[in-house]
């Protein structure tokens, strides 16, 4: 019988000698070294509780209209904190206040951007892909497919919400309950319990697949699938080589916000992924009891502050852009069940990755309608245009160093995000 080491090194076939054509099908464009964590706040958040307050406006119901009881000394107010207009209530939303106090100088808040509709799914599609075609890749998938990407996952979707488009080979998924974790632990709990535990066996099978993929690239040189397969095998092998370490990262609760954000940070910091899409795990769809926005926003901003602190401590904040957004906002007034319905605007936070913070772009008026801006500079401009979701999307692409014209032809990127 051969030794395991002999087996590991005896398997290289003729077709697999030399470098496999990695990256052949990758997106072209300016090289981007930035990384991305996209935090999706599912359900339509209400920024009147956070960074687009309308306190005192009788036409717009906000936290001041929440039913009691109130704590003694509890006050709703609007304050400007490091360039942001913030709805402050130190009792109900202390973490929102602390977030803007601590991170306001680095945060760019963007309001008054139209999203084009009032339904969850089409707006999610617009938000994440910049359009209404679900065959197109989203921001996270685009960045994960970039030519410079060497991380084994490329992009990874922890939320299930990703649209990978043509970049499926570089967009990985984790499963609804992060089943990926159990597959990384063969022989142990869950779905992995009956899987092979010998890495040499895995290597043999990978080597076989490499040979077969390479043979196919010779047979059919125009086909992309076998090239993608070779690429995926290489990256799978990298993942398997460190599977214990990787599986440990997933030893968290898929339903908890902090666990999701911690995992996203660790996947970026550890060099596993170039970009991550993560759900905030807070559900903002308050058609009933809109006052729930107070607590869930406070929890989310607490989690965000914690995440940014970790990123800063790990030294990844400067080159990692964090985007936080919901697919739309909420309407002006309370309905019959004290909820608020959908409103076709975006309210978005950007931080890190070269974002120039301490500022707000865009504005909504006292009827919660968007105001025009100069799309090139992002500054308010009465003679400008109402910014739309595709302008914002293109602006983020541009900021990440992605060729905007290749993905959003003819769309003017919203400027003013970075220093450039």
């Amino acid at each position, binding site marked *: 019988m051969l030794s*395991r080491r002999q087996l590991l090194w005896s398997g290289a076939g003729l077709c697999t000698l030399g470098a496999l054509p990695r990256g052949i099908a990758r997106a072209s464009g300016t090289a981007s070294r930035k990384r991305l964590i996209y935090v999706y706040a599912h359900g339509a958040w209400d920024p009147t509780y956070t960074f687009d307050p309308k306190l005192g406006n009788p036409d717009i119901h906000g936290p001041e209209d929440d039913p009691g009881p109130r704590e003694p000394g509890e006050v709703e107010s609007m304050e400007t904190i490091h360039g942001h207009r913030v709805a402050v209530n130190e009792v109900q939303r202390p973490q929102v206040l602390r977030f803007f106090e601590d991170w306001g100088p680095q945060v760019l808040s963007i309001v008054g951007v139209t999203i084009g509709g009032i339904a969850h799914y089409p707006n999610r599609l617009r938000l994440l892909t910049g359009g209404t075609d679900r065959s197109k890749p989203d921001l996270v998938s685009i960045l994960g497919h970039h030519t410079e990407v060497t991380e*084994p996952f490329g992009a990874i979707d922890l939320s299930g919400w990703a649209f990978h488009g043509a970049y499926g080979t570089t967009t990985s998924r984790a499963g609804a309950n992060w089943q990926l974790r159990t*597959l990384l632990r063969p022989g142990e709990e869950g779905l992995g319990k009956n899987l*092979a535990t010998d890495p040499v066996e895995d290597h043999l099978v990978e080597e076989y*697949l490499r*040979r077969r993929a390479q043979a196919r690239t010779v*047979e059919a040189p125009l086909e992309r699938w076998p090239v993608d397969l070779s690429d995926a095998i290489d990256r799978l092998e990298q993942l398997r080589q460190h599977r214990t370490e990787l599986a440990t990262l997933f030893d968290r609760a898929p339903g908890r916000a902090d666990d999701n954000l911690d995992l996203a940070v660790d996947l970026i910091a550890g060099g596993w992924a170039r970009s991550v899409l993560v759900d905030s795990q807070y559900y903002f769809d308050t058609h009933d009891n809109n006052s729930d926005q107070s607590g869930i926003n406070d929890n989310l901003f607490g989690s965000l502050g914690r995440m940014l602190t970790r990123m800063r401590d790990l030294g990844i904040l400067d080159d990692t852009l964090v985007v936080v957004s919901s697919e739309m906002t909420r309407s002006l*007034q309370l309905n019959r069940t004290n909820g608020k319905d959908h409103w076709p605007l975006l309210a978005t936070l950007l931080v890190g990755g070269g974002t120039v913070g301490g500022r707000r772009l865009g504005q909504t008026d006292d009827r919660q309608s968007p105001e025009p801006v100069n799309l090139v500079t992002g500054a308010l401009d009465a003679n400008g245009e109402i910014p739309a979701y595709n302008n914002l999307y293109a602006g983020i692409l541009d900021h990440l160093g992605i060729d905007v014209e290749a993905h959003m032809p003819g769309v003017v990127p919203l400027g003013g995000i970075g220093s450039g």
Partner: protein
Amino acid sequence: MWIPLLLACQADPPSEVVTDDTSTAPQAVRLDAVARASRVSVALRGERPSPAELEQVADDPAELDDLVDAWLQTDAFGETVRDLHAYHLWMRADTRPQWPNRYELERFTQQEVTHSFQEAPLLFVEHVVRSGAPYTDILTADYTLADEVLSVMEGLPFDPDGPTWQVSHHVDGRPQSGLLSSTGLWQRWYTNNSGKHRNRANMLSRAFLCAEIGAFDMPVFPTVEPTDNAATADALRNDPACVACHQNLDPLAAYFWPYEINIIGITIDRAVEKGCGDPEGNPDHCYPIRYWNASRANLYQAYDLPPPGYYGEPGTDLTDLGRSLVDDPRFASCTVDTAWAYLTQQPVEDFPEDLRTSLIDEFSDGFDYQRLVRSMVLSDAMADATLEPLQMRPEAYSRLLTSLSGATWVESIDYGDVPVPTTSKYGLRDLSGGVDHDAVLTPNFSPSPTMLLSRDAVAQHAAAAAVANRTLVDPRVTDPTVARLQLAEAATRTTGQQVDPHHPLVDELWWLHEQALALTGDPEEAWRITLRALFLDPSTLTY
């Protein structure tokens, strides 16, 4: 060792150049008869042709027509019909909260309850298609299907001595109009007090007309606050930002007012806790659930919304809506487009226009879905050798491996017996490139690391089962000549190629087998590893 591999690298692709009589210029590159039969078989059934069927088409390519006729009569084709419609209606959303297996449903597992509820509309479509009835019946037929779970859940008449799924009828007074009368479908497409059934109307426009109303961007920003009912009603009629969508959306939504907006598990729990009796607990929310209540039919008036109507034509009830939908020319074209996109994995934009027109014309004459699929899979477009390899969906892959190994990977957990390859909540469906019908809505036809990892897990289970069940190979075989014969047959059945013992694929498998035997010293283990690799082979994963 290296010579066969060189041959593998130089082997011709399984295709042929087709020329016409008047020109020597190539017109198209088509798959050869065997490769074509294999692609068609997987598209229709998720299974490969048998070795005898491959031989049949190799000898006479025209035999494919008869084979397709036979394959259309198989249960596996019925499963494909269900898969296609599940994908299109986003029905198998098992990650969402489900109606609980408590109270009268206690004797069933949650997996059984979820499966029956989600699968009922799909089985109904399969029933229509396989019966040969016009496909328009999916929206107009005056019956439904029920099993034991649905009979308890919805009070549908059911004969316990009859078959598992039986023709039945709702007894709550709802008009019976195919899928439009399905509780499972409309609970999947639930709405809320603010949405007012518009989500359901939008689904109709997307799934049956391929003209999703909600996909259009608002032309201008709205000026109305939605909680102001009078102002909203006025804006929905007069504000250009609203009219563009709502003039069609709201009358379509109005058909659905008798339905419950959404019943969730806690609704049922509360009703039961209160004794299922008015006024303490709403009896409609106890099993059997009363999902339809005709007394709500005119509630749209309370919000000053328009009455039922179909794109400008006044309507009455679900049967009228069903008739309007199937009479709409977009129903036929949408059916053709969605079937083509699913079976070919190509975007509709790439649908050859002449073929599309011809198929729509043919389908519109009698709405014969089997004939439509037959024409589609036998078309030249389906035999196009220049297409990227089509990647097996998780459902088809599971069927293939089940047919080869005699077993499906099922995990028995508290939730029930969960088929791992084809479910998402506790399974590997979306990790394997599939959709979860809720969040993950676009299939991945490219290999990614996580797709390979999850397919490998499925392959490992199937390989172990195939060895244990002796379905594909005799794992005691060690003689090289016999082993190569065995590998050739296994490869033929798995990949749908005609593989003889001297085929390059057998050389590769034999190389692996020898390595595996050297590693383990155990012939059975060596065969298991060999089959694991074969089940992951590019020729297995694609068609």
